[in-house]
């Protein structure tokens, strides 16, 4: 009993010690920031959710060796009156919740990286338009502005600056499995959905699940088919309500989505990357990072192709979803908007973009005056950069729909794939949701 009392006491003591320690260090920090009275120091708070601070392939890499730390160090050296306070934050839902809450109280950062398109435009009332900070020349060397503008056009009012590109979303396939089934998906590239299904069915005869998808693959496959069917202006009129999702052409896409599941051509869960690498799966979807991992693990056995067109009469052929998925945003309540925009410009500069690629943390870029091929030797990376720049790459459709519409689509699409909702019902619901959003 005595012993236990001691242990409790020692824990209490430990807490006290750590408490006083933290208290002390906190004071030190405060005095440091108020120390330089003579010259006003500009403090820019950057919530970093975009730059890597972890390297899967080199875990012993120290924090100060990552690109963003070095870039900040370079910038601070060149601008002694500016201090960039990089605070790592989670991304996705957690960042949105934090950013939303803090911004309502005008208490957020000066700079952060949000998902592009409607994900960031949701917070438009807190974002500083970037047009006045970037000259025409500065703007023209960066591609993908349409991901950050109000109306998704390249020269609209921009609420952010393209951060980086996701490239084009591809299908990865196992060459051996496909050869065994007697298919060459490149030479005999399916021209429409029916041919695609026929191809998958051939793979299935070899007792191998043909296609592995993730739970959010709706965004990569059928949503892309919808987008290629109507093209970007068509997507815009769908969102504005001048055309309807219940258009039979689009309903067919959802019917196709159901067909893939109905014919047991697909499994959709978190294990697909595992199964693909273990060669138990004919084909799967992937972006840059997955594709490099696949080729590292499977070598020559892995091949890549763009998602087949849904039909012959789509408006955009042989493309893929992708593009600028994230953007720098400067808050309009920031006290140092100009200085923050200058820092963004610095990060987008030719030199810094080259540094970023050389660091190995980014593989492809959004500036058109840097040729990635000069700095990387891997042919696969080159292919991806080329594909990303092809005009057939369609900007993520889910970043074009209002966030609420995407959320509704994501929730309901799984009812279609599991056969609980028909394609017509689904599209009707989406139309209804869009109309109710337009009414607001």
């Amino acid at each position, binding site marked *: 009993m005595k012993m*236990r009392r001691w242990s409790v006491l020692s824990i209490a003591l430990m807490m006290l010690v750590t408490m006083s320690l933290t208290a002390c260090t*906190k004071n030190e920090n405060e005095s440091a920031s108020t120390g330089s009275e003579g010259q006003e120091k500009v403090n820019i708070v950057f919530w970093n959710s975009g730059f890597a601070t*972890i390297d899967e392939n080199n875990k012993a890499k120290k*924090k100060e060796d990552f690109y963003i730390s070095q870039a900040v160090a370079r910038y601070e050296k060149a601008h002694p009156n500016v201090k960039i306070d990089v605070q*790592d934050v989670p*991304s996705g839902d957690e960042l949105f919740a934090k950013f939303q*809450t803090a911004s309502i109280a005008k208490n957020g950062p000066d700079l952060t990286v949000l998902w592009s398109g409607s994900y960031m435009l949701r917070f438009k009332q807190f974002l500083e338009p970037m047009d006045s900070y970037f000259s025409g020349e500065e703007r023209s060397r960066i591609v993908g502005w349409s991901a950050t503008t109000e109306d998704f056009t390249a020269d609209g009012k921009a609420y952010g600056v393209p951060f*980086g590109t996701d490239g084009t979303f591809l299908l990865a396939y196992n060459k051996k499995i496909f050869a065994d089934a007697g298919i060459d998906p490149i030479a005999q590239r399916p021209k429409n959905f029916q041919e695609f299904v026929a191809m998958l069915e051939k793979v299935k005869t070899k007792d191998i699940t043909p296609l592995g998808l993730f739970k959010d693959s709706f965004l990569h496959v059928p949503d892309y088919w919808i987008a290629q069917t109507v093209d970007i202006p068509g997507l815009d009129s769908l969102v504005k309500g001048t055309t309807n999702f219940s258009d039979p052409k689009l309903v067919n896409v959802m019917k196709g989505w159901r067909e893939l599941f109905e014919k047991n051509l697909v499994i959709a869960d978190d294990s697909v990357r595992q199964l693909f690498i273990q060669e138990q799966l004919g084909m799967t979807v992937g972006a840059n990072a997955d594709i490099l991992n696949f080729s590292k693990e499977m070598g020559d056995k892995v091949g890549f192709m763009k998602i087949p067109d849904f039909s012959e009469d789509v408006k955009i052929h042989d493309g893929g979803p992708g593009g600028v998925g994230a953007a720098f945003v400067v808050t309009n309540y920031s006290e140092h908007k100009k200085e923050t925009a200058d820092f963004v410009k610095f990060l987008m500069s030719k030199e810094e973009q080259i540094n970023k690629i050389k660091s190995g943390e980014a593989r492809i870029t959004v500036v058109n005056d840097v040729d990635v091929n000069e700095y990387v030797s891997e042919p696969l990376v080159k292919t991806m950069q080329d594909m990303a720049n092809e005009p057939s790459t369609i900007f993520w459709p889910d970043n074009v729909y209002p966030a609420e519409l995407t959320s509704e689509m994501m929730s309901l699409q799984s009812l279609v794939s599991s056969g609980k909702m028909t394609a017509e019902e689904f599209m009707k619901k989406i139309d209804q949701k869009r109309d109710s959003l337009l009414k607001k």
Partner: protein
Amino acid sequence: MKTASRRMIRFLIFIVLAVIAFMAMYPLFYMAISSMKPTIEYIKHPMGLPKTWYFDNFIALIYRFSLVRLFGNTLVYVGLSLVASLALSIPAAYAFAKLKFKYRNGFYIIMIATMTIPGITFIIPNYLLMSKIGWTDHIISVVTIWSVSAIPSTVFLLTSLMRAMPDEVLEAIKIDGAKYHQAMFKVILPMSLPGVVTVSIFNATNWWNDLLTPLIYLQSDGLKTVTVAVATVLNRFSSDYPLLLSGLLLASLPPIAIYIIFQSYIRKGLVIGAVK
């Protein structure tokens, strides 16, 4: 014959309990084996044993985070919140359990009612409030939110326990002319210690795992908690699950240690009393 069948039954009980124990241990085991895999191996064999001894995930955590500070911060916030929540809850529980006064039941019902609202609802109003007082990005915000939101459930448990305390002891000390604080420190606290420890374990583990409160209210890197820091491992451009699991494993070690040390206190005397 009788002892033989009794032995058989005891053996069966042992098996059942052992199976449940295995299930309870499994998540920890899973984290441990996953933390020793490189990312690609985890993708290939998420459930298998690691092929080699691979500690790079932990090295990455050490390089990536100032662990001492993160653990120190979390320990301080949780410790202060524990002290604050108990200081607020014990007198209230005592009043509900043992004192007679007007509107006692009314207050009690109000207290329980506050437990029935989802916490997410409060985030925005409370953040605005905190930012008006100027408490955001300061430990006081997290400590306040944690300790205040834990009051109702803490009072609820402690009241139930204190009701089971024999009135005679309290009467005796009252007749002796003892003051409130004497009754509190000589009788109430010692007798309700197991309950206090139990509820503290419940609260401390909840707080330790809480992502949303410290994520929303704190910003500076120097103030972060372990749980928030670990959540930054995943971002749009990296999904290093073994690293995440290593972080979560590391983050769960202190609460496990605290639990093991404190649980011996719960052994005797935690009796939830009559409900009135």
